[in-house]
């Protein structure tokens, strides 16, 4: 069966569920008495247990970052561009650990799980979890897998924030912190977009104060809108222009330069339905997402983003937060990312330098906006690959 998969794919993968009985006290003060984490691992843990890499997922990601769940899967995991045999995160060198974070909707305990106390869906009763809580739960998973120290913790966007939190909360338990397209905290504009997304969901008449699953429904329109607005912020103006500039427009028939105004049906409708390709694309994206994602999880993930600010424990000085983090830092940003633009990564670099940390930073020219971190952009992937090859060499040197 796996013959049909590309040779640089991890191939067919099977998630595993780990149950945890130790109550987890959350940042909010609430306690999660027990929970499941769904996990996928690729590659082999070496005998010294030193070659493990943790992948932290972003808002809509999960534990399935590479490979296929079935031979019929049309698409591989969300970061298959970078994870696999011979890829940047090389599964022939590293043992790659992925999990769906708490509050997620891909198998770990979250709002769409059954609350054992009530035997109903958690829904809105699932506590708000934060990046810190996720990292604490990831550390428990690490203990479960008997991994003393990560060779690297890697993540983009919200995943990059988990990487930073690892360096602060468990500084002795990782060698390298690889933080891609992230930010030290959200800006007002970032929070504003998240709030519009949340409002779209909560104002859907099918939301039912978050108890929609009990009623056998879900806020499809709200979730669609949330995803549509999110999707716009993940792409750049130039990426959208390029994506929807394939056909000539009605008014410029001799040119393919139409600013991304490809028409959906070839002519204007003079109505209020879809006219342009970008509109139908967003509808499609929203539609697809709403079928696969839980609305309460979306609310929760955006809150985790909004609340992220590790400097709060250090009088607002993020440099102080990193003072006791001996790990090495590698940061990358993308030129057209306007969700977490390069200056946000530069802020992080400044604080890391102030803290006296070892840091490397790359600014990748890329048209794809925030989504660039998911795409195999040559310079980006080469840098990640070269960096991790060096991480692996260090393991070998330390072993001798």
């Amino acid at each position, binding site marked *: 069966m796996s013959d049909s998969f590309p040779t640089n794919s991890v191939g067919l993968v099977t998630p595993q569920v780990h149950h945890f009985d130790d109550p987890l006290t959350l940042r909010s003060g609430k306690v999660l008495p027990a929970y499941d984490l769904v996990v996928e691992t690729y590659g082999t843990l070496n005998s010294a247990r030193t070659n493990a890499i943790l992948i932290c997922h972003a808002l809509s990601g999960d534990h399935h970052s590479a490979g296929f769940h079935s031979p019929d899967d049309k698409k591989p995991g969300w970061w298959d561009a970078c994870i696999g045999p011979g890829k940047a995160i090389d599964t022939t060198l590293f043992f790659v650990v992925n999990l769906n974070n708490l509050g997620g909707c891909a198998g770990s305990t979250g709002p769409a799980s059954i609350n054992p106390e009530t035997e109903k869906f958690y829904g809105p009763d699932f506590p708000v979890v934060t990046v810190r809580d996720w990292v604490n739960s990831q550390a428990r998973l690490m203990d479960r897998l008997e991994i003393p120290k990560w060779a690297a913790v890697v993540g983009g966007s919200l995943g990059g924030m988990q990487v930073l939190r690892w360096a602060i909360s468990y500084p002795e338990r990782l060698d390298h912190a690889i933080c891609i397209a992230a930010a030290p905290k959200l800006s007002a504009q970032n929070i504003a977009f998240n709030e519009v997304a949340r409002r779209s969901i909560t104002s859907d008449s099918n939301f039912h104060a978050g108890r929609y699953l009990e009623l056998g429904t879900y806020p499809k329109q709200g979730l669609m809108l949330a995803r549509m607005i999110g999707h716009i912020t993940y792409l750049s103006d130039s990426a959208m222009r390029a994506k929807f500039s394939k056909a000539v427009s009605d008014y410029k028939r001799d040119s393919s330069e139409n600013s991304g105004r490809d028409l959906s049906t070839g002519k204007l409708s003079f109505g209020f339905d879809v006219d342009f390709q970008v509109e139908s694309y967003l509808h499609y994206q929203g539609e697809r997402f709403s079928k696969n994602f839980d609305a309460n999880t979306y609310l929760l993930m955006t809150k985790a983003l909004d609340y992220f600010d590790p400097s709060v424990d250090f009088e607002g000085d993020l440099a102080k937060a990193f003072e006791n983090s001996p790990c*090495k830092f590698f940061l990358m940003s993308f030129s057209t990312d306007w969700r977490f633009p390069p200056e946000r990564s530069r802020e992080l670099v400044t604080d890391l*330098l102030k803290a006296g940390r070892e*840091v*490397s930073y790359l*600014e990748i020219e890329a048209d794809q906006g925030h989504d660039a971190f998911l795409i195999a952009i040559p310079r980006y992937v080469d840098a990640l690959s070269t*960096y991790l090859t060096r991480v692996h060499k260090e393991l070998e040197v330390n072993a001798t």
Partner: protein
Amino acid sequence: MRPDLEIIQQWIEPGSKVLDLGCGDGSLLHYLRTSKNVHGIGLEIDPENIQRCIGNGINVIEQNMDRGLSNFQSNSFNTVLLTQTLQALSKPDVLIDEMLRIGEKGIITFPNFGNWKSRLYLSSKGRMPVSKFMPHAWYNTPNIHFCTVKDFDALCREKNIKVLTRTVVDLEHQGSWYMKAWPNLLGEIAIYHITKETAE
């Protein structure tokens, strides 16, 4: 290693912190780390050089010096290096101030435009010197702020910068007694070890 780097590495204390502005492929920082246990960070803008730095395990930050160095704390490094880049900066004087704000000491190397070959070229041909050493035409050269040893000495005096050591070498980076005697005429590359003048 490039011979000017061979000379300046002798001025760097073992175990010290070094910031290399325009670090190239990181070979100097790599050498300093392996031979002197130096903690180094390099600044670079060329993607291929940056990639080599990463491969060499050198901390490298993609940053254009012309946009300033305000992200570096004052007195956070022992030595700040600027090799063969001074003449390509938009505000070299400001950058020198920044080097000595960030580091206790600075090391600067630059091509000496006062060298007799440049003088001869300009006086005999009446045109901007072009050579194997300075291969660009005036309109496309990255080197927009050439200076001579005398010019640099004057800038150091104006800025109250103390010159700890000044060496000039030729393109083979050989020094000699006659270069020491007539540095501005015979030296092709100037190498300065500088620090802030302290009020004594």
